[in-house]
């Protein structure tokens, strides 16, 4: 009965594709209203796909999205909605920039050290929300949103007060002391595609194995699917909340590392901005599955990369931002509608299979 599993995959993918298609249609209407030609806009937007540079840029932009979507998805698997990836990422960025610049290590170790610092600080920041939920029953949506504000302000304050380095002549933007080259994550394609891409792929593979192939992952999914049933089998729900928050936070810490270790090599105020929030959209479109996340991250990365071309045609590039927003809304609505239809279909099929078997007997 492998076909049943295949059908589920097909139905799931089809509903996400439908969502993207619906979003494209709505955006076409918006373009028409604003007096632009949607066909021209879309041919410009998707015509860029033939350009190798655009494709390299797509992978590069997809890198942090994959990691932050995985951070969100691991919470989702346990019915936890970690909206705090952005804040956890930001705390980790500053901590890593400061710690990485403060020590000297040989190249691979220095990178490893930086990644560990990033994961640890991200996890610690997420642990606050986990602790609040476990000990005080505070909804994690509220606490992670609030902690985002705290993180943003705290980091901005600490950066300005303690860690701003003296600017090199001619540089206007304030930065921390630059990381030594031993901490730089090497590029795959010079200035276009950073090696963190492989780390992102590794994260998705490990995410898949952990959640779908291990006992722990099963308990995590079971706690998310029915906390009551997991509890009577002896899975401690509070422990699961804490662990999944820590894992989510650790991944959140990695989100900004492509920008920090692979690009700017110092902390600055707008570094990796919004990448934590964008991961929520990617996780939703990708249905919290590593493969779906991979494809969705590529799509979002592509839209971001190709949007610049629209400006050449006098079409505002913000249309791609609107498009991502509509995709997310369409995903939520269409997924629910498709799920209801599919549930009925499965129930009907199960009943039918039994009826025929009873008749056969």
């Amino acid at each position, binding site marked *: 009965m492998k076909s049943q599993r295949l059908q589920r995959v097909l139905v799931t993918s089809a509903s996400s594709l439908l969502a993207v298609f619906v979003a494209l249609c709505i955006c076409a209407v918006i373009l028409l209203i604003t007096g632009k030609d949607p066909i021209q806009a879309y041919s410009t937007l998707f015509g860029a796909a033939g350009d190798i540079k655009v494709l390299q840029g797509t992978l590069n932009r997809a890198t942090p999205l994959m990691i932050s979507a995985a951070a969100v998805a691991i919470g989702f698997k346990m019915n936890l909605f970690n909206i705090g990836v952005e804040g956890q990422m930001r705390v980790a960025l500053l901590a890593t920039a400061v710690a990485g610049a403060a020590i000297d290590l040989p190249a691979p170790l220095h990178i490893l050290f930086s990644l560990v610092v990033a994961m640890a600080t991200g996890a610690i920041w997420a642990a606050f929300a986990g602790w609040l939920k476990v000990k005080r029953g505070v909804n994690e949506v509220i606490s992670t949103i609030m902690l985002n504000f705290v993180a943003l302000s705290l980091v901005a304050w600490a950066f300005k007060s303690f860690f701003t380095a003296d600017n090199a002549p001619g540089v206007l933007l304030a930065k921390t002391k630059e990381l030594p080259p031993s901490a730089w994550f090497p590029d795959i394609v010079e200035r276009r595609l950073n090696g963190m891409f492989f780390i992102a792929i590794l994260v998705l593979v490990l995410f898949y194995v952990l959640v779908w*192939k291990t006992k*722990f992952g099963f308990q995590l999914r079971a706690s998310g699917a*029915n906390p009551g*049933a997991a509890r009577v*089998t*002896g899975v401690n729900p509070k422990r699961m909340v804490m662990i999944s928050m820590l894992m989510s936070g650790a991944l959140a810490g990695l989100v900004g590392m492509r920008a920090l270790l692979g690009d700017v090599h110092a902390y600055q105020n707008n570094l990796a901005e919004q990448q934590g929030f964008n991961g929520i959209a990617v996780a939703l479109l990708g249905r919290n599955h590593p493969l779906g996340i991979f494809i969705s991250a590529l799509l979002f990365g592509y839209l971001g990369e190709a949007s610049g071309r629209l400006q050449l045609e006098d079409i505002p590039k913000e249309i791609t931002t609107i498009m991502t927003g509509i995709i997310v809304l369409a995903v939520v609505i269409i997924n629910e509608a498709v799920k209801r239809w599919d549930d009925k279909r*499965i*129930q009907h099929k199960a009943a039918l299979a039994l009826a025929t078997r009873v008749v056969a007997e």
Partner: protein
Amino acid sequence: MSENSESHSGPLAVELHGISKSFPGVIANYAIELMVRPGTIHAIVGENGAGKSTLMKTLYGMHQPDDGTITVNGHAVQFKTPTEAIAAGIGMVHQHFMLADNLTIIENIILGAEPTDNRGRINFGVARERIEVLMASLGATFDPGTNVSELGVGQRQRVEILKVLYRGAKILILDEPTAVLVPQEVEELFETLKRLVLDGSTVIFISHKLDEVLTYCDEITVMRQGTTVAHTTPAQVDRRTLAQLMVGSDLPDPSGRETEVGEDIRLQVLGLNVASEIPGAKLALQDININVHSGEIVGIAGVEGNGQFELCEAILGLRPKLSGTISVGGNELSGSDTRTRREMGLSYIAFDRHREGLLLDSPLWENTFLGREENATLTAGPFMKNRSIEADSRVIIERFGVLTPSEQVPAFALSGGNQQKLVVGREMASNPKILLAAHPTRGVDVGAQSAIWDELRIARDRGLAVLLISADLEELIGLSDRILVMFDGHITAELDPNTATPEMLGTYMTGGEIVTSL
């Protein structure tokens, strides 16, 4: 009181005629006949699952009947929502209080029906006046400005009644209102109800406690297996007849067994006390002593909500105990978590398969794996062996006759009986030493029921110790070697299923005592 109402010649307060209501696969109510005369306390009695709650939900507009008519004060009505029922003067006091703790009594009462001035502001003065008038008529004495969090259980219930009266209800439905009350509070409640009836209200009182019904109510309608079976008054019946009407008189003979009950005590509960979840309420379990030997089925009879759930949770280590000991095979369990207890051979068929038994959206093979993550044939180190798990799932499906196209089907697609067989199969698959079986055949069809019973008998003959919690007397008498009756958090009787009669069980289950020498 009843003489007054008999002379009353006006229309009935409530008349239900030929009501039936079915849910997918279950007929909850059929051929219901109910006549409630105005100005009376009318009791509706019946066992759990007899269809009382379904009937009251129909009357209160929470769902619509498939068939039949509802007449209120002589007018035929069709309620689509509770709001329409409230407008017709019907109010429901739920068993579980629906009060906001951090609001005052006034705020709770007016919530959703606030008197406002023409600028939309709440007029607390008007509200307080009306509430004080209502309180006086109830004989309630608390300050309506008090926070609800400071009230005791009895007082909270009074607030619930006020809430309903404030909305103009003349017909009150009370769903098992005495379940959480201590005896003195029960008396106060009925004093309140008597006052209401004298003021012209009508009370419909749902209960399974026969003493209360016989002492305080004017008329009684008995329900059994989804329909009304008798209409009577306390003057015409005694508690024995009433119990018989409630449970039905024809019970099966206990099935003989060829094997002997073992010598060793598998599960021992000594002096167990467990607190209630409701602050200020009486203990959920009080001084419970139970021994289950190997190869023995000990039945726990009782109406649901008398401590059975708390007993299972305490044995599983899911709920803290105040005092007492629980031992498995001679090992005291204090300090071991639920997982450890399960690995010591404790298995559990949960009360509610949807809430605690199944992952409804997950495929069957994940459901049969749930709780068995330490099983060496199904896992390798930290990894799941998906092929073995799926094969094991097919074995369980085959052995317990779960009707399904395959193990890949999500659990929600199965019928209730097949879901239950899957749960029973999973719990038996780990070869437990002790099985806590809570309502193992609830809501399943006859075929599935006898299959589950057979499995329990076979396992028992192989030495399994079973604590069987059930409200089904046929099941209890047919399977148990001994029957303990639980009432109000106590074990009130121990009976031999060979000599136990339905009246005896009915009496003990509803809090009565048998005085005659046995």
